[in-house]
């Protein structure tokens, strides 16, 4: 197994672990805002690690930039979406 393969296995494996953490958090955390916290952070970190692991395997700079662009788009979308979802959740259960 070459060094590049080892890097991919470690990074993609760590990404899979964060997806596991995100799903467990989404199922186990007690209220909507804590679940949102688990989802938005753990899953985007997992996606970032998967992208990092796949980066050395793409051919050409353009392919790598495309992967990074997808991750950044997912980050921006998730950041905006979590604000909107949190607003809906807070309106459903207003703070005392």
């Amino acid at each position: 197994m070459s060094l590049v393969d080892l890097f991919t296995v470690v990074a993609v494996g760590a990404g899979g672990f964060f997806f596991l953490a995100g799903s467990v958090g989404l199922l186990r955390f007690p209220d909507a805002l804590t679940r949102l916290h688990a989802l938005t952070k753990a899953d985007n970190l997992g996606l970032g690690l998967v992208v990092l692991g796949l980066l050395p395997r793409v051919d050409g700079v353009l392919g790598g930039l495309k992967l990074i662009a997808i991750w950044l788009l997912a980050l921006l979308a998730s950041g905006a979406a979590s604000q909107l979802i949190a607003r809906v959740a807070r309106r459903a259960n207003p703070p005392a």
Partner: protein
Amino acid sequence: MAEFLAGAAGFVLLMVALGLIRILRGPGDADRMMAAQLLGTGGIAVALLLSAATGIGATVDVALTLALLAAFASVAFFKSATDAPAGDAGDRG
């Protein structure tokens, strides 16, 4: 190596399916939307892993489309859950 990447894609898909249980449980609409958001993020990861495993470059474009659609889905959810009229939501929340 392709086997490992395909296996990782299957694992991520399994985790997304596990998260979808939240849609059944609820209790609120926001919780259900979070599981759909998880499907978006996980779907991107699955598409990228399958692209690397099979060597079909066009699958990366599927991931790009999923990333875009997940963003629009959340905005549409917010629009339907609130009575905000079309236009800027502002600070009404």
